């Protein structure tokens, strides 16, 4: 039995529908990251599960029971908000303890639980301070502690790392998975950062255009994205998208880039004649000085560093711009000018233009 179930839930406002009959299940102890661009309704989804908002249609089940009409205080979930939402007039200790005082637990039990969670999140030494005296990182951990302290079966985390500086965010990204797994809760984790989604989630639910576009494990979403939209949401820099129309040929299906014919894997032969979009990730494009089979001419326009990779802006013969990335920060920066680009057959992602859906290669 799934621990969390969202069934055909819709929610709209005067400006229009934000979520349209979406469904999602999460198993006991699973971490599901809800990922999508800003405004896609991720926070709204969490609020619907928490009971702070009511759906227009659909049901929400927690632990197998229908809670759609239940008030938030009766749902037994823990929630951490994006902007922390700590109570300014209470100490950090009281903030964390608020999830336990509602149950009228005895004081020593409360103290023990609060201190345990505080030690886990390394805020034990600031528990007596008021929120305004805490650093951003400490506030974020206090908000997390408050969500965790009552050991809820369902944990809702609304982009908890968003308002924290980059170093701390990275550190928490490394520590959070084991922390969340240890809590045993089923977790819905909202984020706008695809790396965070991939790092933390057992599965990722990609929310875009009022519905889940793809729900799967991180590796599958990255390698076999269901739609063009999903493909472009994962990967830095964004995936290259080139309009092509495959041609049938005795040597298998071919596509043209800037006047050069290149082979497609045979599994795409059935797409000949249809307008498609070819997706190539920057890291799968090799740039060389010499031509080779299956390479096409390009002009290197710009070379910029990106983290520990080098990004090359290329222009094809028909004027299109694509990005290639090479590992390592280049010692001898590549000169601008003519070069050749090549990609392997495993890198090919083909999407149907009209629907945006990915075409699965057919077995021979």
């Amino acid at each position, binding site marked *: 039995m799934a621990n969390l179930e969202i069934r055909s839930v819709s929610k709209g406002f005067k400006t229009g529908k934000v979520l349209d009959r979406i469904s999602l299940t999460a198993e006991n102890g699973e971490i599901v990251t809800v990922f999508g661009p800003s405004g896609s309704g991720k926070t709204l989804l969490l*609020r619907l599960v*928490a*009971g*702070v908002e009511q759906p227009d249609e659909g049901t929400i089940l927690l632990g197998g029971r229908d809670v759609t009409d239940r*008030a*938030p*205080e009766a*749902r*037994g*979930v*823990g*929630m951490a*908000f994006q*902007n*922390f*939402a*700590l*109570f*300014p*007039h209470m100490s950090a200790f009281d903030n964390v303890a*608020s*999830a336990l*005082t*509602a*149950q009228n637990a005895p004081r020593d039990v409360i103290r023990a639980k609060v201190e345990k969670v505080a030690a886990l999140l390394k805020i034990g030494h600031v528990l007596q301070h*008021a*929120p*305004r*005296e*805490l650093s*951003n990182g400490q*506030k974020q951990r206090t908000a997390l502690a*408050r969500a965790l302290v*009552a050991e809820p079966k369902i944990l809702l985390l609304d982009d908890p790392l968003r*308002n924290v500086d980059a170093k701390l965010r990275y550190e928490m990204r490394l520590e959070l998975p084991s922390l969340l797994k240890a809590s045993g809760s089923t977790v819905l984790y909202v984020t706008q950062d695809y790396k965070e989604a991939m790092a933390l989630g057992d599965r990722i639910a990609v929310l875009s255009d009022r519905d889940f576009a793809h729900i799967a494990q991180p590796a599958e979403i990255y390698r076999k994205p269901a739609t063009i939209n999903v493909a472009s949401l994962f990967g830095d820099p964004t995936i290259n998208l080139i309009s092509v129309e495959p041609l049938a040929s005795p040597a298998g299906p071919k596509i043209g880039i800037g006047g050069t014919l290149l082979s497609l894997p045979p599994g795409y032969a059935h797409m000949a004649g249809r307008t498609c979009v070819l997706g190539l990730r920057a890291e799968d494009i090799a740039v060389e000085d010499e031509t080779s089979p299956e390479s096409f001419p390009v002009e290197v326009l710009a070379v910029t560093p990106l983290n520990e990779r080098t990004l090359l802006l290329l222009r094809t013969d028909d004027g299109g711009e694509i990005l290639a990335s090479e590992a390592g920060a280049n010692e001898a920066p590549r000169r601008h000018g003519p070069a050749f680009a090549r990609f392997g057959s495993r890198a090919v992602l083909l999407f149907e233009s009209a629907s945006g859906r990915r075409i699965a290669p057919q077995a021979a």
Partner: protein
Amino acid sequence: MEHMSIAERVVRGALIVLVVIFFLFPIFWIFLMSFQTNEEILRIPPGLFFTPTLTNYSALITGKLVTVSGTLDIAFMKNLWNSVLLSTASVAIALLLGVPAAYAFARFKFRLGEDIAFTLLSFRFAPPLLVLLPLSLYFQQLGLTDTYVGLIWVYQLIALPLILWIVRGYFEDLSPDIEYAYRVAGHSWWRTFTRIAIPLAGPGIAAAGLLAFIFCWNNFVFALILASAEKQPVTVGALAFVTASGIQYGQIAAAIVLSVAPTLALALYAQRYLVEGLSLGALKG
């Protein structure tokens, strides 16, 4: 600010001094008058130097005014007490009714909500004289004329809209997320209202209450029409100094000083309170 020249600074300072003198002068003069006898007050030209006397104050406090034509009873202390009673009770009731109402307006978006809120505010716009005549007729029918209850009820017209609008603003400024967090933690909406919303809007509620108190205290027209001498506040009571044997300017001045003192003190105290403000350090940044 850093780029003003000396000349600009001097002119700015001089203008500020002039404005301050313009506004504070009447109060200063009245303060002086309260320590002068009638003869000194009416002297022409008016002099700044005189021997101060406390007879005006003692007359007010003892309730007896010794004049040339005899001794008069002055009910000033009773009036002062009426002012305190009416203003305090009115504000207390207005807070009791207004704060939850303000919360409802701020949090629960219901149809016509904005219209209802504006209607309530509009009561402040209408000149009191407009409603007084019909109101006094109703009061007579209901037997509410010359009762504290009746006056306190009418004073709600002054206090309630004020509290509603000010406190609603403070509730709206509170991030709803803080209240959601408390509810998700397991607390009912009532506990959230009393433990989270009210404490956090506290400065606003106090400020609104103080402001409402001052407005109630200063009200003249309602008490004039709807109350008798026994229930009158100081605003109306000051009329008693216009006696058959002449206008006792000295006592009026002293009465004014005593009437203004409480609200002035409250306003100064509240100013500090308001400046403290809300420190919503619980939100990011």
